[in-house]
């Protein structure tokens, strides 16, 4: 009798285990993943997710003038949409948050431009063009020399001025 109870218990456990396994593993048929079409790559601060390719400040300026300046201003300082300026203002009552004054990581710029810009024609730029516009916006902020070609390796190396300006919320 005892053996029977034990066996029953094991059987019951087995059923439970199978049910749990089904719940978490393949309850419904999943599909294969196509990296090219199923997600936008995430450009992280360590450079993972950044594509190959490169762009120059000059190429970026050309794209910026035709596709970005209308909202951000030719000098990147349009009120409400400023990308440059504001250095040293964060600890004042008149803080101006821009890429140069506030953003802690340069990779964020690539990630955001590739997915969300230009507004109204998102995801229309090639990887090289995104590198180029990223380069130009960094250049506007005095964070990239005019003759540097930006790629995954050079982008990750850029030290943003406000890198140490954040702390994790308790």
């Amino acid at each position, binding site marked *: 009798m005892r053996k029977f109870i034990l066996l029953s218990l094991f059987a019951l456990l087995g059923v439970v285990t199978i049910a749990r396994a089904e719940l978490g593993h393949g*309850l*419904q048929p*999943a599909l294969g993943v196509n990296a090219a079409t199923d997600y936008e790559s995430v450009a992280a601060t360590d450079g*993972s997710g950044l594509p190959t390719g490169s762009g120059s400040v000059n190429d970026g300026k050309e794209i910026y003038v035709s596709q970005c300046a209308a909202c951000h201003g030719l000098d990147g300082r349009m009120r409400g949409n400023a990308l440059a300026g504001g250095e040293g203002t964060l600890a004042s009552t008149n803080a101006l948050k821009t890429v140069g004054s506030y953003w802690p*990581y340069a990779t*964020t710029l690539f*990630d955001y431009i590739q997915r*969300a810009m230009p507004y109204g024609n998102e995801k229309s730029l090639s990887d090289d063009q995104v590198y180029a516009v990223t380069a130009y916006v960094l250049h506007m902020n005095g964070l990239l020399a005019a003759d540097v070609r930006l790629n995954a390796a050079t982008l990750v190396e850029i030290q943003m001025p406000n890198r140490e300006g954040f702390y*994790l919320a308790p």
Partner: protein
Amino acid sequence: MANFSDQEPDYSASAGNGLLSRRQWLRLGVGGAAASLVAPVWAAGGTSVEPWRSGAGAPPSHYGDQPSLASLKREQISAHPFGLQAGASSTPLQLLNGTITPNGLHFERHHSGIPEIDPSAHRLTIHGLVRRPLSFDYEALLRYPMVSRVLFMECSGNSYRNTLNKALDETAGGLNGLISCAEWTGIPLHYLLDEAGLDASATWVVAEGADAAGMNRSVPLSLATSDAMLALYQNGEPLRRSQGFPMRLLVPGCEGNLSVKWLRSLKVMNQPAHTREETSKYTDLQLDGMARQFSLRMGVKSVITSPSGQMHLPKKGVFEISGLAWSGHGSVRAVEVSADGGRSWTEAVIQSEVGEHKPVRFRIPWRWGGQPAVLQSRAVDSAGNVQPTRSQALQNVAPGFSYHYNGIQSWQVNAKGRVSNVHA
């Protein structure tokens, strides 16, 4: 707004400036008290028949109906230079009662408009630090086990305009309406993450939307694997397009931006991505120039929705003060109300079901004798957090950059019964 006659029963006072005892409030229907509660409308003589009492009404409708009152609509808050597609619309809190927000009135905040997604062409992909990357289509996801929870959703920028120096003369919804509540139904996210198999080094999940903004946010794995869900239904019906159809992430208690709409992919990582939304935006810049990042849980908060901004008290008498309270740190434990700008307080009735991240409806009777008053509510949550005053909430905040603001809302009632927003 509930409006009662001057000949109210003999209430006892519970705090200054006319606040009455909550203990008597919900027993009013019992016995003789009801007779004197509401000023009766005496039946007029004659035999006239109103038009709706004769002849058939409209046939049943396929979907919904027009709202019963034309005024029942969201307010557009168009503060974005790009236009309405990157703007917000707020729930008209002052026109609603109870705790659930009708789907047509849930607040909206989009970064690049509402996409029209073909559900048969939509995939949810899990990739990154997983044993096997997976894609799911909508039909497959509909067959997963689901859970339902009543939860608040609040935009990180809700009540932002109350942080400005000038107290704007707006309605409760116009000022604080980027908070809504729904019964959300969906798949516990860990079912899907488990199926893909999390790598031991996984610490964050980066969620991405399928909208033009490709909105992406890093979610701590502890949140993603505890009570986060892949939401597919809202108040019983498939999500509205404006709320993420066919599917959205839902992270209970956290700033709305984290609950990425039109969810397309989840990348499991060993670091946050530091996306634009979690660095440039939605971080809390302090007066010393430092910024708090990943301040995801919404603080304990309450708003009196009636009487509230731009309402008129028609005459002296007893009114029900009523409002909503919620917390991202747990459940609401108590709500106190003041009618004298915070000098004296008394506890309101919490008259709806209490639960984790579930908004409650509070009520308390108040006798307005025609005197000026400042009405306030202050919520306390199960973690012991007390809703701060406006000045406490703004103490270390850089002016103009206030996300996660949960200061006490003050409504001033003047001698004519006009109610308006005031900084007190």
